[in-house]
């Protein structure tokens, strides 16, 4: 292999790629803008919807409201988002709830035997439709109002009897979040960055892998390329490095964009919502992410190019490579188990190991032996893919695009077939 040739071919691939709108959009613009913008839009949208929800009226019918609790009645009547409807029978109210014309029925009743010990005590039954969000919200609102009122009322009754609040409560549960703002930020980064990095590296490799194989055939430039004096190995190496480069670029650009937008967009929005997050990364997390992006890109590039090399057209290529993209998503589910760290078993699962390694690094956890295992596993997968690619490209009809079938048919007929006759004439050592 001549590295000067590889460089010439590699530059040609990149130059063509960055003039192709689909590749620029998928591998650069989407990673840089789409997900950060999407994140901002989603969060702002959620806040907006939440605001609308808070202002939306709950239509409620009260039955047998207790006369000795005027404060509770005032609260219910004056609450902006609660609209009290005229009294009707319980059955009619339930019918209206079922057809969505009423959100909740609140029935006050005398307490049971135990509750009778406290004068003016009462119990509340709320009927609502759990299948309807608006009705659920009405139930929650009424419950919160009544709970709040009862707490205050019991306090005042207890005070009249000379019982201090602490004595009455006996014990109280107090929660305190000891996480720093940085740790909360790391939690969020740890959930988002591994997911985005894996997805973006895979997405970055997707179009170039198809474009550099099936795309060449579709444009009839494949045969042109086969006539240049560079060796087949140089041609394939240049293409492989090009696909991996775009994958790495997409991953790194996206992670940078997500990180910056989390700090610049999400942190202020979350602060408005009452949550404090500070987004910082441990210094060593950066090289870990870059190494992970490179390993993932080398793996995805090899796997996708093998499958795309069976396609005769770009459309075929998309159909053949898409499963790799979705398969890449499955192992990331492991990375979303927030209490999990890298273990010897997870380090042996390709893609999941990289996602977990990144998350650990973001949280400042560096399990060096397991990180080494992760890299070894990914590089072994890359080596296996390259060996498979070499086997596949030894078949001339595949190299020339005249093989009519999928990878699975090829594997069945050629790689697993022990009948030498059928493959005679098809296999010609090429690379």
């Amino acid at each position, binding site marked *: 292999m001549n590295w000067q*040739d590889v460089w*010439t*071919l590699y530059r*040609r691939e990149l*130059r*063509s790629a960055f*003039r*192709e709108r689909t590749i620029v959009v998928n591998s650069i613009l989407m990673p840089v803008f789409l997900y950060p913008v999407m994140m901002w839009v989603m969060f702002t949208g959620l806040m907006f919807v939440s605001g609308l929800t808070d202002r939306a009226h709950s239509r409620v019918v009260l039955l047998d409201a207790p006369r000795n609790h005027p404060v509770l009645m005032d609260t219910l009547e004056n609450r902006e988002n609660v609209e009290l409807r005229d009294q009707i029978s319980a059955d009619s109210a339930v019918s209206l709830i079922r057809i969505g014309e009423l959100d909740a029925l609140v029935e006050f009743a005398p307490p049971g035997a135990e509750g009778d010990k406290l004068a003016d005590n009462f119990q509340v039954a709320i009927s609502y439709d759990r299948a309807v969000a608006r009705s659920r919200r009405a139930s929650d609102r009424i419950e919160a109002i009544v709970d709040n009122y009862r707490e205050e009322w019991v306090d005042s009754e207890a005070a009249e009897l000379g019982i201090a609040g602490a004595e009455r409560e006996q014990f109280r549960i107090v929660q305190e979040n000891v996480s720093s703002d940085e740790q909360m930020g790391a939690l969020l980064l740890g959930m988002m960055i591994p997911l985005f990095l894996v997805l973006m590296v895979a997405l970055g490799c997707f179009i170039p892998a198809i474009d550099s194989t099936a795309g060449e055939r579709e*444009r*009839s*430039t494949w*045969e*042109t390329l*086969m*006539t*240049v*004096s*560079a*060796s087949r190995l140089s041609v394939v190496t240049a293409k492989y490095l090009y696909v991996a480069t775009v994958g790495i670029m997409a991953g790194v650009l996206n992670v940078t964009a997500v990180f910056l937008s989390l700090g610049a967009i999400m942190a202020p929005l979350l602060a408005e919502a009452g949550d404090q997050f500070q987004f910082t990364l441990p210094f060593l997390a950066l090289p870990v992410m870059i190494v992970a992006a490179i390993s993932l890109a080398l793996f995805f590039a090899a796997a996708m190019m093998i499958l795309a090399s069976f396609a005769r057209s770009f459309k075929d290529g998309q159909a053949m490579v898409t499963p790799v993209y979705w398969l890449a998503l499955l192992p990331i589910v492991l990375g979303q188990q927030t209490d999990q760290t890298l273990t010897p078993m997870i380090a042996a699962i390709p893609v999941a190991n990289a996602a977990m390694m990144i998350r650990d690094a973001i949280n400042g956890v560096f399990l060096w032996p397991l990180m080494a295992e992760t890299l070894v596993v990914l590089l072994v997968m890359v080596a296996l893919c390259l060996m498979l690619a070499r086997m596949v490209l030894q078949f*001339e*009809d595949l190299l*020339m695009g005249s093989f009519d079938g999928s990878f699975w048919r090829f594997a069945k007929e050629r790689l697993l077939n022990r009948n030498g*006759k*059928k*493959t*005679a*004439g*098809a296999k*010609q*050592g*090429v690379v």
Partner: protein
Amino acid sequence: MENAMVRVEGLQKSFWDESRGEIRAVDGIDFDCRPGEIFGLLGANGAGKTTTLRMLATILKPTGGRASLNGHDVLAEPEAVRRSLGFFSASTALYPRLTGRETLEFFARINQYPPDRVAERVDSLIDRFGIAEYANARVEKLSSGMKQKISIARTIAHDPPILIFDEPTVGLDVMAAIEMQRVVGELRDEGKTIIFSTHIMSEAEKLCDRIGIIHRGRILALGTLDEHRQATGQHYLEDIFVHYVAATGAGGGAAAAIGAPGPGESGQ
């Protein structure tokens, strides 16, 4: 032939087809080509022309026989063969997203033209083919006539001594086909060895110094147009072609009946 730039001896290519079994696309052909001559490979569609030329260009590997270009064996030294060769066919398209100038630079460099002379070479090709006006436009924006000129320039970007044109005028309009024939003639005059495959008889008559008639993977006859006329008693190449093909249909050993060369002979 002592000074042959292209030497083909008993070249074979078989493919395996699930339904038809083994298919011999090229069945032991022999020919040589000299510097400064246009060797025509004339045959109907499916005769084995493209497969033969692809083997010479090392795109396909022969399943039997030998071939060498500029002294380099196609199996042992494929890269050296491709360095000595410019290959043009209807299925060798240009990269649409490169400009004409970038295309010529790329093909000159990747085919080992001396790096310090690439820019000069590209400029001279742009002048020669009159493509300066659109040399910096992307190929995808050009008309088919413009693309054709860049495509020919691309084929000779590294100044190879041997050129293969596989049905180069297929799909071209009359003027473009004439322009192509003119360029091929010029290249011959510059001393290039040219293999020109076609199924258009008039084109072969007009351009080729020697013509090999190929049918069902075999060369039926090989010689100058005059030699073919003498051998068959026919004047027009179309009639000569039909004569040879009909002879194979008669069931006799075609090569023997019409005096085609045996393995290792040039046919002269």
